[in-house]
């Protein structure tokens, strides 16, 4: 599969993470794996891109993180979407829709 430009990846990453967290809280590894699986490997996060972004979202108060103890005694930092974060999803989706529609008009490609 063709690799996606890094800048588009960066821009889409926040929307992908917020959308995923809208379903249920997840920790960092689960977020990375689920996005990778759902996008067929097109969007892959390494630790250097995932965690700084999650912390940025946390500072914007779009997500809230808290440590949770697992049954095996380990701790995982789970990210949960906040009300403020939930409000961001619709505008971000609208921006991306507008972007793809504009691209479609220029290139003539069709959405799957």
């Amino acid at each position, binding site marked *: 599969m063709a690799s996606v430009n890094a800048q588009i990846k960066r821009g889409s990453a926040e929307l992908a993470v917020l959308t995923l967290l809208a379903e249920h809280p997840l920790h960092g590894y689960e977020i990375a794996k689920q996005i990778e699986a759902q996008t067929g490997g097109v969007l892959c996060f390494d630790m250097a891109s995932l*965690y700084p972004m999650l912390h940025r979202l946390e500072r914007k108060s779009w997500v809230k993180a808290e440590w949770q103890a697992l049954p095996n005694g380990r701790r995982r930092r789970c990210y949960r979407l906040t009300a403020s974060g939930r409000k961001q999803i619709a505008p971000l989706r609208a921006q991306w829709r507008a972007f793809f529609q504009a691209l479609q008009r220029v290139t003539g490609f069709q959405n799957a």
Partner: protein
Amino acid sequence: MPDWKQIVHKHLRVLGACSPEFTEELAAHLEDSHEALLREGLPAELAFQQTIGQIEGRYRVWLVVRFLLEELMTGFIRKVAVPGLLTSAAVGFFYCALALDHIPRRVIWLAGGQLPLSWWCLLPICGALGALLSQRKGGSRPQRIAASLLPSAILGIFVVLIFAVGFTMSRSVNHYWWGSALLESLGIVPPAFVLMPAAFSLLGAGIAELAPRNPIA
């Protein structure tokens, strides 16, 4: 099973010093990643190599750079720029005060240049001031250090500009003295006005780290 907390701490000391919570989160990620690879049937050694590869080489550099950038840029004006500029004003004030004739100035001589030893000795106070001002605004450790080092960074930019202009002018002023004086200064000015001040400011920031801290909401 490898102790991923220990491994992350060893590989990413800088991050560990800045945010122990972040390193614990990274260790948890690696632990999950390692276990997933083992479940997929990879030999233990290969699974370990692939997992640790996520925090080695360019990934390690990127991780540190991205983390520090995020840390520095969050509330940059309030937590770094303003404390740093106030510190720069204090640095400038001390330098001007010491330059006045009626205040005795102790100097040392190095490579024919006059280095302001007294000024350097006051810089830990400025470094501590920058760190404490940043701390009051809730600055993280990288931000506190950056606020302390901002005066040296500003001086560094000035020094680079002055030398750039100087060398450009030396082409039009065709005199051997001009060029040789610039080259001689190159060995004195950057250490005296950038590197040593940075070191002394860092010392002050280190001292400020020992000060008791109020919890910040």
